[in-house]
């Protein structure tokens, strides 16, 4: 049986992305029509029944989020789509935005209907400038065709969608930082409480979901929660877009049902197709830079929220960076840490100063000047980052380090005595540093 299952990505590459005509022909907007005949709570019930987990990275149940939002009395409420896909190794939102934007629009429109919202915002990262234009075109076409804007499909419901741009900040993937950014401010996370559901965009109640989450909404209404849940595992309904990169034969985005194994994802002929070269798999990095690294013994873990968590792994953004034996774990972690240094908003001490010190210690390993005491300092810093940082960025910054320290300790130890098993460190070649 095929391990890939195009469900939310079925239109990708098959239709003209901004054509409402093509989209409707492919079954699009049936869900919105259905939704307009339903009560908001019935829709929330479907989402809950489908056990849709938020696809932004945290995996929070979308139905529960919608329920909480529904219960808030203040108005207006805003619908915001987080399209600040910034996790390295992740490019699945890009696929949807670029090849089936109307599905995302339809999902947001349904959400707007549920909360009687009249304005929705999609925050698309500045690096996706071309996609912003394309998305705007899709919006314009949807308005033209009566699926968006005033009195949608002749109903009393009006919903306006605004495309907002980022300007290069990974931390804007954090929802409160993103809302600040939409408001035209520097995208540093907000102090919580108050929570965004109550005091969000422009100080109003706000629902934020990821691109892929919104794209799932019309699918769930189309096929029904029961059928949706039958795909995937008991706990994790539906499919997931996974992004393969690194030393894999066929990098790209693949839609797989929850429950396939990590081995399937990397090695199945229809998916990753195995390693890209002659070298063997050493480890893999899941869910973006903020996610854990996985190792050979975990390869048969089912790809779903529950099983991964039980094995110390996570779905995260859906990224799978495949790494072969040419990769030195120290060199790799330095690169990961540099990313967090660059992307830290800088306002909290653990993240601003901690990541910097983490890098300096890793650098000592790659220079052969690290000592046993540096393990203790790494541990202090990673603990601090995880437990004390202001937002998810800092909290996750040492996740990869921790998993590597646990599973590749011998390679760290080797560096203490001046040996780099992968042959990356201690060569005379100057390894260039970042900006």
């Amino acid at each position, binding site marked *: 049986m095929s391990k890939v299952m195009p469900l939310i990505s079925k239109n990708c590459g098959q239709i003209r992305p901004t054509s409402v005509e093509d989209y409707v022909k492919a079954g699009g907007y049936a869900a919105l029509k259905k939704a307009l005949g339903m009560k908001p709570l019935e829709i929330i019930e479907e989402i809950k029944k489908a056990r849709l987990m938020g696809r932004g990275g945290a995996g929070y149940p979308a139905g529960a989020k919608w329920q909480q939002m529904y219960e808030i009395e203040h108005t207006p409420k805003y619908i915001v789509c987080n399209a600040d896909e910034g996790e*390295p*190794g*992740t490019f699945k939102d*890009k696929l949807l935005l670029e090849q089936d934007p109307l599905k995302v629009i339809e999902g947001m429109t349904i959400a707007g209907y549920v909360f009687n919202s009249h304005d929705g915002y999609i925050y698309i990262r500045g*690096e*996706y400038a071309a996609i912003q234009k394309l998305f705007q075109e899709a919006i314009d076409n949807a308005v033209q065709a009566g699926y968006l804007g005033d009195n949608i499909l002749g109903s009393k419901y009006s919903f306006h969608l605004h495309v907002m741009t980022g300007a290069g900040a990974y931390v804007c993937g954090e929802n409160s930082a993103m809302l600040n950014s939409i408001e*035209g*401010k520097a995208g540093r996370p907000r102090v919580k409480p108050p929570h965004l559901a109550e005091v969000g965009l422009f100080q109003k109640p706000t629902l934020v979901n990821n691109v892929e989450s919104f794209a799932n909404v019309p699918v769930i209404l189309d096929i029904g929660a029961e059928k949706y849940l039958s795909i995937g595992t008991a706990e994790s309904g539906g499919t997931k877009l996974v992004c393969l990169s690194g030393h894999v034969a066929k990098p790209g985005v693949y839609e797989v049902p929850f429950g396939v194994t990590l081995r399937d994802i990397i090695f199945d002929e229809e998916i990753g197709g195995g390693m890209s070269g002659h070298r063997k798999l050493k480890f893999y990095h899941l869910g973006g830079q903020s996610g854990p690294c996985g190792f050979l013994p975990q390869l048969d873990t089912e790809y779903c929220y529950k099983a991964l968590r039980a094995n110390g792994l996570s779905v995260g953004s859906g990224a799978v960076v495949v790494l072969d034996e040419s990769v030195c774990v120290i060199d*790799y972690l330095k690169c990961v840490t*540099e990313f967090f240094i660059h992307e830290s908003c800088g306002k909290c001490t653990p993240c601003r100063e901690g990541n910097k010190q983490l890098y300096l210690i890793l650098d000592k390993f790659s220079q052969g000047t690290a000592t046993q005491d540096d393990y203790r300092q790494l541990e202090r810093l990673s603990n601090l980052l995880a437990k004390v940082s202001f937002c998810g960025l800092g909290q996750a910054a040492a996740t990869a380090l921790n998993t590597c320290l646990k599973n590749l300790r011998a390679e760290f130890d080797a560096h203490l005595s001046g040996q780099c098993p992968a042959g990356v460190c201690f060569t005379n070649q100057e390894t260039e540093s970042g900006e």
Partner: protein
Amino acid sequence: MSGELKKEQVLKIIKSKGKEKEQLLAILLEIQQASGQNYVDKKWARLVADELGLPLTKVYDALTFYAMFSTEPRGKYIIEICQSAPCHVMNKAALVQMFEKQLGIKMGETTPDGLFTLQYSACFGACDLAPAVKIGEKVYGKLTAQKVAEIIANYRGVSVCPK
């Protein structure tokens, strides 16, 4: 050195986006692009601040927070090489060398003719093409030295004939 950009142009950009504070990033990005030197000069930042009713320090905060902005002049074309892990492990270093050699500058520098600035970027979502490079809105992946030469020549407006 706020160069060719005129006040009327900046005002036109502001008008086209609207004066709502939430348009700040979009306005600044467009001004930067129109500047020809990929930066936002203090006098345009001040004009935007005045038009949007914001203190200049709030505009400056945004300009210095987001990686895409610069408050100093840069090259007409920004060549951004991804330095995130997926590109790093796919030999980003070799790609850097190709560009450095072709342009005769180091990372972080601008060519003397003011045409190109070479810099690192965090991930821009082209990991399937790793190691990836982005020039303006265009993304290139899996490059060879020959292709790098062609791309640069293209931007220079010169054609190169392959051997």
